[in-house]
């Protein structure tokens, strides 16, 4: 039983060491402006040893509300959706290295009650 636990611990440690030792590779990097100076949005997907991490954010002025929705498609086909809702100044969703195949991000900016810009971007 103890030997089995040791093996598991060794495997996890090896995986962490492997992820840490291999340089992260920029899979997809999108950095664009929302229209008419309403701020910016970014999707940064990196990979390392077959795993991926993601940083999706939209930001600009505190006068405007930003929303980020991130759909993560995992290696087994499972989809997980996370959303910030509209928040003043900025919105961000990050995920550390995981067995993800693909990320789809929705970014939007709102001024008062009116949507000023919205985009869908993807990275894999």
């Amino acid at each position, binding site marked *: 039983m103890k030997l089995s636990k040791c093996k598991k611990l060794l495997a996890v440690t090896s995986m962490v060491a492997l992820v840490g030792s291999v340089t992260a*590779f*920029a*899979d*997809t*990097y*999108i*950095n*664009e*402006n929302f*229209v*008419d*100076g309403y701020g910016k949005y970014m999707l940064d997907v990196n990979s390392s040893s077959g795993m991926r991490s993601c940083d999706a954010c939209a930001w600009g002025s505190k006068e405007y509300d930003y929303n980020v929705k991130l759909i993560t498609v995992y290696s087994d086909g499972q989809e997980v959706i996370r959303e910030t*809702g*509209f928040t003043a100044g900025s919105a961000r969703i990050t995920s550390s290295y995981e067995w993800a195949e693909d990320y*789809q991000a929705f970014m*939007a900016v*709102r*001024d*008062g*009650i*009116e*949507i*000023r*810009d*919205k*985009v*869908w*971007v*993807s990275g894999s």
Partner: protein
Amino acid sequence: MKKKIYILLIAFLALFIIGCNDNNIPEEKNTQEHNITIENPSADVQNDKDSLSSFYTNFVIQDKYRVYRIIEKSKNMDINIAIPDWQPEGDAVIDTADFVNAIDDEMSDITQKRIDFLKEKLRPNGMSKEWKDSKEIFIGYATPYIKEYTSDIVAETVNKRILIRTKSLWDFLLKDNKETINKYNIFCISINMYEGFYHSSNATRLLLYGVPEETFKDTIKIEDGKSVRESSETILEKYNNGECKLDILTDIELTKSGNYYMDFSEIIANNTYQNIILKIELTGEVTDEYTYAWEGFEYKTVNEQAYQDWKAENVDKFIY
């Protein structure tokens, strides 16, 4: 003694509960009360799967308007927005409801379903069905201010009305650390100007600019060690100041609502341009009550013959 302690504890608890309730009172009270009751729209239009009412149910038809009730709890917002109950005959087109509902707690997901429905509906034959090979391009809309139905919140938006928009139609990104341009063959713009309701002479002026290689290179900057491109507004400003070269591909005035197609296949095949910039402008008399909606969809070809057959049957819908 014990009794006094219990009384004190209960008193503190009561004060604490009152305090919590006070925290729930918003700083700004935006809610407005209206006498409009939202009911399901009439059954005759509900059965039409292409109709707006097969997606949205938060409105009532009143005085030739569709009056939508928009609720967003996080902002304590409960308002009505009246949109002319008019749609052009023929194909389904974008509607102002497709944008105003995006801020409603219950309707925002349905709004995306309606946009996805339009993207599929307007997809020409021969285009890829892959998610990554098509794209929604938000262009713009205006929330109408009709005093009888709406609130001061809507009135405020009229002051910030935007009548001109520019958009880059192709994506620029770093893929595996290399600068990449994601080009789309077909662009469809869906336009609704509600001309049958307003009987006005408003029009949508549409310009397409081709960005040649040398101009494109000049628009790439390095930020935090990574390549990013300038905004389409900045590039057009430079063009207007004579600081860079662009080619005008089309300059057309559209007076009728509908879905208009543009084909960039030849440009892609010849690698003539590295980006296409769309400039769109609403012209004519624009009152506070006026509304319009513009939305774009892009597609990539996978079956050339199927597309050419479709194009031959729909040639009147092409403006480029």
